[in-house]
Each structure stands twice: as structure tokens, then as C-alpha cells.
């Protein structure tokens, strides 16, 4: 073992910082300091800037338009972007769909879909969950029936984040009801402008609109829009989820940003005549989470260093990180609300949203804090609830 800092790593970090200093627009940074959902325009503008400088998705392989960065470089990049308050880009497109496209897409599909994604001209959303199929995803019922050169899709998806902003959706649909339920599932790409696609917003407990129901009513999709073969959808979906077992589970940017907010607020807020951060009990709770973040970061480094892992080991590590990181994240957003005292309970509408309050009902650092608290609940639900993660660990590690 050798723990000494790698000088190349420091140079790399400086390179990223310099780029951010010169190219992160001030309005995006200001908005990134708060926790309101990035708009479509913000996501795409930032992505186009990243792409123009070769940072479109730099950890992807060179033949896929990336720079072939190592996992460690990706971690540093993510950390610097978070510290600079850069907007979060289209997760569904980059973290979920992109790797599937790269691994399973035909050359034609890759040529059609990759460049628009990387250059920041399209937004993707994911159609997996259905009203009757949440944790038990394989029970999904949305159907795709072959008619000539097309698939005709009928059904309903739910929790489709960003569907109202999206140009395309990748979805799982049932193309056969024969055999095991996993075997009849296929992975299909649908243009959201297709006739028969409709989106209905779901306003979440944070008062924001990112979630949707998405309906498919005799939607005609060219057969070329299937990724892989009919029936291969389940294994592609597993590939997609495994791909995100590390970076997606940890979501380090959310942790860094949440910690920074708690420290900032608790450093300003007075309680009993002193800074809240000088209250031993409150500060100890912050300190615990501060260190947990360092531990999760180290778990990432350790896991990356292990290299290729069996699916079983990846499950154990990935689910462990998911549970711990989301718990830390939720505690941080809770502490931030608590730190605001009276203003923790006040509703702060998105100042750039549809119904901004004029003037803001309290200090600027209170904006977005309650929104972040409510939104953070989702982290322990999406990608498999923390209860499902525990089931996975009990099965993978102990055989139960």
C-alpha cells in the first residue's frame, strides 16, 4: 500500500479548477449554490460548454467521445464541479443511457444518438418504473407489439424525472409474455414528440416539478430504435444499474454541496448568542457527517482500485455505499433545515421559477434548503429503495 499524494493528481485538479474559473457562467454558478432543479436551458448550456472543452463525458472511452479518464480522475472532476457549484447535467442521458448506447448500440445508433447527447442538444429521460412495478420492476406491463417495421407501444410509466424537458425516453417494454417475466422485456428508444406520448406532471413534496407520469397510447416506434435484441432488455437494464453502482450510489457531488450548505448556514446562524456551529451538540452532528463523507470517498477510491469485480462483490459494495451515502445526504439536508431555525419552516419559492416571491421571505442562504431536504428523500428510494439494497446485501453476502 502507498498513500502518498500523486503529483499528477494535483496537476489534474488544477487543470479542472482553471477551466471552471474561466468557463462556468456566473448565473449558472449562482443558481447552483441553491438547490432548485436545473432548467432544460441550464443543463444544455452547461453541457455544451463542457463538450466544447473536451469535458463532455471525459471518463468515457476515447472511441465513445471521451478521454478515457480513470475512475479517480472522474472523482476529482465531479468534486471540483460540485465545489464550483456547476449545474448537474442530464443524469438520465449521461449516467444511465450513454453507457448502454456505448456498450449495446449498433454503429448506426451510436452515430445517431451520441453526438446530440454529448454536445448538449438533447435531454433524455428514463421509463422504467410503472404504477404497479416499482421495486418489482420485472413485473412491468407496458407493451411493445411488432407491426411490420415498427413497434407499437402502449402503457404507462411513472416517476419519469425530466420527462417534461426530455426529447427522448429510453424505456423497458414487454415484447413477449412467454417464459420468465424477465425474458420478455426489451429496451426501446422513443422520441417524446411521437404521437400518442403524453406527460402529466407530478409535483413532489419539495414543491418542485421533476417527476411525471408518461403515457404511451399506440405510439409507433421504428424497429431500429431497439437497443439489443428483443428480450435482452432485462440484462441491459441490469448492466445500466450495475454501471451506476459506484458513482451513482455515492452521488458525491450531492454530499459535498450539502455539507457546504450546512457549514455555511451553521456558521452564520446565531443560537444562544453564539454561532450555531459553536454549539457542541450541533457541531458534533456535522462533524460525524463530515467524516462519513471522507469515508465514502475512500470507499470509492478503494473500490476503483480493486478493478474488475464479480457481480456479487459489486452488489455488496454498491448497495453498502448507496445506503450509507443516502443516509448521510438526508441527514445533511435535515441539519441544514434545522440550522435555519424559524426560517427552516418558511416556504421559499424558486426565485427563477414560475411564481417567485417578491421579496424573498428571509435570508438568501435559506433559499432552496427546505426544497433540498424534501428532495433528498428520493435518494433512498430511486435506484432501488434502501430496503431493497439491504435485501441485496443479505442475499449477495450471506445467501439469504
Amino acid at each position, binding site marked *: 500500500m502507498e498513500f502518498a499524494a500523486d503529483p499528477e493528481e494535483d496537476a489534474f485538479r488544477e487543470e479542472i479548477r482553471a477551466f471552471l474559473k474561466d468557463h462556468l457562467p456566473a448565473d449558472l454558478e449562482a443558481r447552483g449554490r441553491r438547490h432548485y432543479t436545473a432548467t432544460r436551458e441550464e443543463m444544455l448550456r452547461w453541457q455544451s460548454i463542457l463538450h466544447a472543452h473536451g469535458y463532455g463525458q471525459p471518463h468515457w472511452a476515447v472511441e465513445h467521445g471521451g478521454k478515457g479518464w480513470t475512475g479517480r480522475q472522474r472523482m476529482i472532476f465531479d468534486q471540483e464541479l460540485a465545489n464550483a457549484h456547476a449545474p448537474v447535467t442530464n443524469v438520465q442521458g449521461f449516467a444511465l443511457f450513454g453507457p448502454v448506447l456505448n456498450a449495446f448500440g449498433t454503429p448506426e445508433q451510436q452515430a445517431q444518438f451520441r453526438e446530440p447527447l454529448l454536445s448538449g442538444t438533447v435531454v433524455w429521460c428514463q421509463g422504467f418504473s410503472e404504477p404497479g412495478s416499482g421495486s418489482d420492476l420485472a413485473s412491468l406491463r407496458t407493451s411493445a407489439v411488432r407491426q411490420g417495421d415498427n413497434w407499437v407501444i402502449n402503457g404507462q410509466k411513472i416517476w419519469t424525472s425530466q420527462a417534461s424537458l426530455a426529447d427522448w425516453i429510453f424505456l423497458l417494454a414487454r415484447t413477449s409474455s412467454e417464459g420468465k417475466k424477465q425474458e420478455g422485456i426489451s429496451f426501446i428508444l422513443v422520441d417524446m414528440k411521437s404521437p400518442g406520448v403524453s406527460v402529466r406532471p407530478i409535483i413532489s413534496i419539495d414543491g418542485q416539478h421533476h417527476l411525471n407520469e408518461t403515457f404511451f397510447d399506440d405510439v409507433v416506434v421504428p424497429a431500429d430504435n431497439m437497443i439489443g435484441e428483443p428480450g435482452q432488455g432485462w440484462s441491459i437494464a441490469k448492466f445500466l444499474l450495475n454501471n451506476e453502482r459506484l458513482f451513482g450510489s455515492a452521488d458525491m457531488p450531492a454530499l459535498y454541496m450539502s455539507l457546504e450548505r450546512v457549514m455555511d448556514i451553521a456558521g452564520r446562524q446565531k443560537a444562544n448568542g453564539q454561532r450555531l456551529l459553536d454549539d457542541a451538540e450541533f457541531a458534533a452532528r456535522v*462533524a460525524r457527517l463530515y467524516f462519513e463523507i471522507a469515508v465514502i470517498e475512500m470507499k470509492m477510491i478503494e473500490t476503483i482500485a480493486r478493478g474488475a469485480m464479480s457481480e456479487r462483490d459489486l452488489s455488496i459494495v454498491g448497495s453498502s455505499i448507496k445506503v450509507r451515502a443516502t443516509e448521510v445526504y438526508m441527514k445533511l439536508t435535515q441539519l441544514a433545515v434545522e440550522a435555519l431555525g424559524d426560517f427552516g419552516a418558511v416556504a421559499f419559492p424558486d426565485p427563477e421559477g414560475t411564481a417567485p416571491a417578491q421579496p424573498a421571505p428571509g435570508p438568501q442562504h435559506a433559499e432552496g434548503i427546505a426544497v433540498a431536504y424534501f428532495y433528498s428523500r428520493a435518494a433512498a428510494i430511486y435506484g432501488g429503495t434502501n430496503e431493497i439494497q439491504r435485501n441485496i446485501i443479505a442475499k449477495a453476502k450471506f445467501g439469504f
Partner: protein
Amino acid sequence: MELNLTDDQLLIRESAARFVSDRGRPEAGAVGFDRALWGQMADMGWLSAGIGEEFGGFGGPVEIALIAEELGRGSSAGEYLGAAVLGPQLLIASGDAEARDRLLSGIVAGETLLAAAISEPDAAGNLASVSTRANSSGAAFRLDGTKTLVLAGDVADLFIVSARTSGDSGAEPGISLFLVHADATGVSVQPTPLVDGSSAATVVFENAEGQLLGIDGEGFAALTAMAEQAIAAIAAETVGMMEAVAEITAEYFRSRKQFGMLLGQFQVLQHRLADMAIDAEMGRATLLVALATFDLTDPRIRALRFAGTKAAAGEALRRVTEAGVQAHGGMGMTQEYPVGRYLQRMVVLDAILGAPAVHLALCAKTLAEEQA
């Protein structure tokens, strides 16, 4: 950062694992310092494993961690932490070349047992909380005071004692280190067996002769360096213990039936087990955070991260060992069944160098100062 073990490190881990599995866990209710075990550790070279090559050893914190983890798994690290880590590391950290060269060869051969007498009844984990006084008397010093939780203190040949030559308790300057013979006049050793069966003593010094180690009044830095080594060793022992508790519990869940079902088929119990596994996974990362900190130079960051390690490892170990006992129902309460040993050991590790809450408060204070 390179996290793969070298061939030599792999060998150490292998031999430690084999040693623990051959030996089995200590007998239920076994008490005291196992001299035979100590001799075996010396024979295997483990007492040199935490000592740098420049002083005749062959390792450092990683090597200590590899051994401590395996011993922790076997619930038998009591001797190692006290007599192989704390005492020798304090000797090296003291910077006293003469004493080091004179004593180290006997220590690593298992012939001389050196214990660190560094805590006091009201220290609460603060190594600067030193009331024991040392007054110079010609070339030597005379010590007066009481040291508690002196690991392996009941069997030690020599003590390194932290004592104050100036200042008041709590101040870092003015603390010095002294070498004191266990059989010297004015030294009374009262054995205080610990709840896990390991060995310690309360040692009272009354006008006892001590030889100054290092520079007068500048002993605190050495105490800190020793504590860093010990905290990393504890974090490693904790990993082995947590993995063992999870595995013992899983084994129980595979064999015990109630209501016609194996315990492992109850989801609520599966989740308790999963929580243990998560703590064990993250515990290994906690250990790596500690090990990586030895390469950092900023003393503030070092203090923050070692304190964080002690707090996080301690809290996780408490969760896991308490859950382990609970998962076994009545069996968990018995001295005979192994899961309880880990709970007992947790109580001891919590007390050594200060409880998690103490260290969390240290982290909190540093962080608060940081946020100007």
C-alpha cells in the same frame, strides 16, 4: 495512492489469518496476559512489524493494521495493542535514540515488555490531561501520580510514563516522557483485569525514579504520534471484529429455526445483518482514511482525521456488536457463545484513548474553527 498489498504484506496477512484460525478464539472467561501467545508473536516477527526499517524493524502502520485486523477477527488483540503498539510506538516517537537503541531489540524479541502509562482517572481521552508530576533530582527525575488503564501494565517490565515538569493539567507544553522500571522503589502496580479479559493495571508512582526520554517538556508530540498509530490499529482491529460478528450472526441465522423458519428467512433480521455488513464495508474505508493520513503533513488535518477515525470506528463497532448480541437472543447473553466477547472488547476499545464522543467533539471544534 496504491491500495494493493505488497507480497510481504500479503504474507503477513496470511500468517496472521492462519495463526488466528489455528488458535481459535480464547477460552470463554480467559483472563490475563497470555505470555505464550506473546512469545509466539515475537517468534513470528510481529513485534517488529510496526517498526520502521531505520530502527531495525520491517514495517509501519499498514503492517500493524494487517495483524490487528486478523487478531480482531479472532477476538484476541488485547496483548498486541497494548504491548506491541502503544509502548514501542511511544518509545520510538520519544525521539530518544539512546533508550531506543538500548531497548528495542529486547522488545521485539519478546524479552522486554514495555507498557505506556499515559492516561489518568479524569483524562477522558485527553492526552494533555496530565497531573502526574516529575521533579528533577540530580540526573534523574522523581515521579508522583496515578496512571490508569495501563494496558499490559500488570506484566510490564518497564513503563513509559507521561508526567508534567511544568504547567497545569490540560496544557500541551510541559509534558515529558519518562522510563520507569516496574520494580523500582515507589512504583505500585495494581492489576485491573478488563471486561474483555485482557490485562491492564493502575500504576501509582510515589517518588519513583524515572529517566527522561527525549526533550524535557516536549513529550506531547510523541504522545500524539503514538495515539495516531494506536487509532489506526484500533480501526483495523475494529474491521476484523465487525466482519467476524456479521459472519457469526449469519451462521446463527443459517442454523436456528423459529416458527418453522430459519432466522435468516426473516426479512427484519436480514436487514439487521445487512446493516452490520455495511458498517464492516465502511469500516474498512475508515481504516484506509486513517492509514492515508500518515502521509499528510498538516497537523490540523491529521488531528481531525485521526479523531474522526476513532469516533467513526467506535460508533460503528458499538452498533455492530450490540446488534450482534441482540440478534442471538438469549444465546447472545452467554459468556460461552462468542458474540458477546466482541461486545466486551468494544467497551475496552472505547475506553482506550477516549470514547467516540470525545473524538467527535474534537473534530467538531476543529471544523467550527475552520468555518470563519
